[in-house]
C-alpha cells in the first residue's frame, strides 16, 4: 500500500493540484485492481464536472468508468449490487447537495450491509462527494453535509486538506473494505502543492489525524479542523505567531474513525482548543468534537472548547457566502476568547 517517498529535490517536481492528485489516485487504483469501477454522472466522456475522472474512460473503457443515468439513488443502489458481486465501485456524486437522493441507500443499506450479514457481505465502496462552499456556487452547490454522514454508524467519513492527502486518502478509501464517504473540499481542488503525480507519496491509514504545526510553548492553543478549513487554520496559526500565540493545527483527515489520541494529545499540550468547520455549528461535528475533548481532557483545559462554524442558516447565496464561511479573523477572535487572563494573573483565583 505504501509507496516510496519522493526524494528528488523540490526543483525537479512540478506542482500538482488536488484535482490532479485525486484523478491520479483513481487512475492508479483502477490500474492496480480490475475490480475498481468508477460510476456517476458525466464521469465518462466529459471527465466529471470538475474533471477529476478525466481520461479514465479513455484508458479503461466505458465499462470501468461509466456515465450513468441521472439518478443518485440508482447510482449508489447499483453500486451496492456491484460490490455484492465482488467489485469495488467508486461513485461520484456531482455535488454535495445532489447526493441527497442517495441518502436512503447510504443509510439503509451501504452503512448496514456488513452488520446485517454478520460480516458476510462487506461493501467496499467509495462515495466521492465534492463538498463545501467558497467557489461562488449557486444554491445546492456548497453544502457541508458531513454531519449527516458521521451520524450514521457503519460509514467512514474522510476529508483531505492537502494535495498529498487527497491522493493517499483516496487510495486508502478505495482499498478499504468498508464504505467510505470521501468528502472532497471543492474550493481546494485547484490548490497546488509540491507533489509529483508520477511518484506518489505514502498512503496514510484512515483514521489518523496529523498535527500540521506544533506549538512551541508560550501561549498555545489547538485548532481542530478538517478539509477546507485546514488551510484557514494554518493561515490563522501563521498570523497568530506574530501575536505571540503558538497554535497547533490538527488536521483530522477523517471524522469517522475519529482520532481521539492525536486530538487529545495536542489539547493536553496546549490546554485550549477551537474547532473550526464550515458546516452549521448547531448539530455539527464541532459539538461532538468539543464533547469528546472535554470528556477526555477536562483537567487540562484552561478554557471551554470553542467552535467556529458556519452559521445555523441554509447555505447563503454566493455573494454573501464570505460572511458565512469561517475565516482567519473569526478563528483568531475565538482564540482570543480562550480566557488567557487566567495565565496573566498567575497565583490568583480565576
Amino acid at each position, binding site marked *: 500500500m505504501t509507496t516510496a517517498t519522493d526524494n528528488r529535490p523540490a526543483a525537479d517536481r512540478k506542482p500538482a493540484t488536488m484535482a490532479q492528485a485525486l484523478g491520479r489516485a483513481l487512475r492508479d487504483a483502477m490500474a492496480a485492481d480490475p475490480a475498481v469501477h468508477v460510476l456517476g454522472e458525466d464521469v465518462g466522456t466529459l471527465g466529471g464536472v470538475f474533471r477529476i475522472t478525466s481520461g479514465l474512460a479513455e484508458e479503461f473503457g466505458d465499462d470501468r468508468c461509466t456515465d*450513468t443515468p441521472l439518478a443518485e439513488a440508482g447510482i449508489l*443502489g447499483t453500486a451496492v*449490487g456491484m460490490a*455484492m*458481486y465482488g467489485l469495488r465501485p467508486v461513485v461520484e456524486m456531482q455535488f454535495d447537495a445532489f447526493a441527497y437522493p442517495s441518502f436512503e441507500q447510504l443509510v439503509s443499506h451501504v452503512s448496514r450491509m456488513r452488520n446485517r450479514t*454478520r460480516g*458476510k457481505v462487506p461493501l467496499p465502496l467509495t462515495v466521492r462527494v465534492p463538498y463545501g462552499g467558497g467557489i461562488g456556487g449557486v444554491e445546492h452547490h456548497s453544502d457541508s453535509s458531513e454531519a449527516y454522514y458521521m451520524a450514521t454508524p457503519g460509514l467512514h467519513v474522510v476529508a483531505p486538506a492537502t494535495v498529498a492527502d487527497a491522493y493517499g486518502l483516496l487510495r486508502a478509501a478505495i482499498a478499504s473494505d*468498508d464504505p467510505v464517504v470521501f468528502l472532497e473540499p471543492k474550493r481546494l481542488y485547484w490548490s497546488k502543492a509540491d507533489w509529483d503525480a508520477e511518484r506518489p507519496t505514502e498512503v496514510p491509514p484512515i483514521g489518523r489525524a496529523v498535527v500540521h504545526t506544533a506549538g512551541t510553548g508560550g501561549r498555545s492553543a489547538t485548532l481542530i479542523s478538517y478539509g477546507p478549513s485546514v488551510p484557514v487554520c494554518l493561515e490563522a496559526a501563521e498570523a497568530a505567531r506574530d501575536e505571540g500565540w503558538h497554535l497547533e493545527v490538527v488536521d483530522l483527515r477523517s471524522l469517522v474513525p475519529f482520532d481521539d489520541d492525536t486530538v487529545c494529545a495536542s489539547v493536553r499540550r496546549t490546554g485550549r482548543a477551537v474547532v473550526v468547520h464550515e458546516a452549521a455549528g448547531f448539530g455539527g461535528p464541532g459539538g461532538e468534537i468539543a464533547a469528546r475533548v472535554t470528556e477526555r481532557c477536562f483537567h487540562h483545559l484552561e478554557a471551554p472548547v470553542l467552535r467556529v462554524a458556519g452559521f445555523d442558516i441554509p447555505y447563503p447565496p454566493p455573494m454573501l457566502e464570505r460572511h458565512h464561511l469561517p475565516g482567519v479573523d473569526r478563528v483568531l477572535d475565538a482564540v482570543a476568547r480562550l480566557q488567557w487572563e487566567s495565565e496573566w494573573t498567575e497565583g490568583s483565583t480565576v
Partner: protein
Amino acid sequence: MTVLEQPGAYRPTPPPAWRPRTDAAPLLPDPEPYRMLGTSAAAGLAPDLLTRLHRELVHGRRYNTQATALTRQGRLAVYPSSTGQEACQVAAGLVLEERDWLFPSYRDTLATVVRGLDPVRALTLLRGDWHSGYDPREHRIAPLSTPLATQLPHAVGLAHAARLKGDDVVALALVGDGGTSEGDFHEALNFAAVWQAPVVFLIQNNGFAISVPLAKQTAAPSLAHKAVGYGMPGRLVDGNDAAAVHQVLGEAVRRARCGGGPTLVEAVTYRVEAHTNADDATRYRSDAEVEAWREHDPIVLLEAAMRDRGLLDDDGFQAVRDSAERLAADLRTRMHQDPVLDPLELFEHVYAEKTGQLREQAAQLRAELDAEGER
C-alpha cells in the same frame, strides 16, 4: 424577394424528423393476465413440474400458517404472511439456477425457503435475534429488504457486475404493488434497461400496500405497462396460477440470460391475510372480497388441474399434506428454542475493524454484563 430568399442568405438547418426510438408494441403486456391452469395450455405442462409446484404450494401454505402461529406464541416479532401469494413465491424460488441471485423483500421468506434456505434462518429477521440469518453468498439470496424497492437497484447492479465479469448470472428481484410507487423502483428499471442488465423484476400485485388499495397507488393501465416507459417488455400474469407464473418468469430469466435484457412481470394476486399479525384488515376491506379470492386460491387452481389430468389421487394429496405437517412441526420445535444471543456481537460487524469508540463501548457493555452476572 425577401432577405432570406437572396442568394447566400442564412438558412437554418431543420432539425431531424422525430421518431420513436423503439417500437412500443412488442413491449406491451397482454390485455388479460396470462393463465395456463384451466386452459388448453395446461395439457402441455410436464407432470413433474406440476407435482413439484403442488408440493411446494402446500408446504408453503403450511409454512405461512405456522409462521403466523409463531407470532401468537411470541416466537416471531412480526410475520408478513404470503398466504394467497404462494404461487408467486414458489415460482420465484424454483425458476432460478443455482448461480443466479434472488432479491427478496420482507414478505418473501417463502421464496427463500423454496430456493433452499433453512426456514429458521429465513425467519431470523422476523424473530429479531439479528437483522439477517444467512450468508447471502451461500444461497445467492440477498438479505430480506425492508425499505420498499431499495433492493431493486442492488439486483440491477449485481446483474450488471456479473455481465461485466462474463458470468451468465441472472438476478430476480421481488417487489410489491406499493413498492412500484417508490423512486428506487423507477431508477432500478431505468438503469436495468439502459444497461440491458440480466435482471427480472417480479411485482406481486396483491392489491394492497398495508391498507391502501392499488387504485390509490397508480393510474397506470396495469403495473406491467410501466415497463414500456423504460424500454423493456412488460408481462402480465395470473399470480395465483403457479404454472403460468413459473412459465412467464422462466421465459424472462432465459431472455435475460441470453443477453435480451430485463423484463418486468406483474403477477396479479391477493394478500389473503392482513399486512402482518399487527394489522387489522377489516378496517379497509370486506370479507366478501377476501372470500372471492379464496375461490381463486393457487392451491385450489392447481389441484383442480391435476385432478383433471389424473396426476394425483387422494392418497397422493394426503402424502403431501403429511409432509407439510412434518415440516411445520420441525419449524415449530426449532423456533421454540431460544436463540443464542451475544450482546457483544453488536460491535463486531459494524466495520472490518472496530474503531476506538466501538472498542470503548464494547468494554462498557462487557462491564455491564459482568455486573449483571454478579447480581
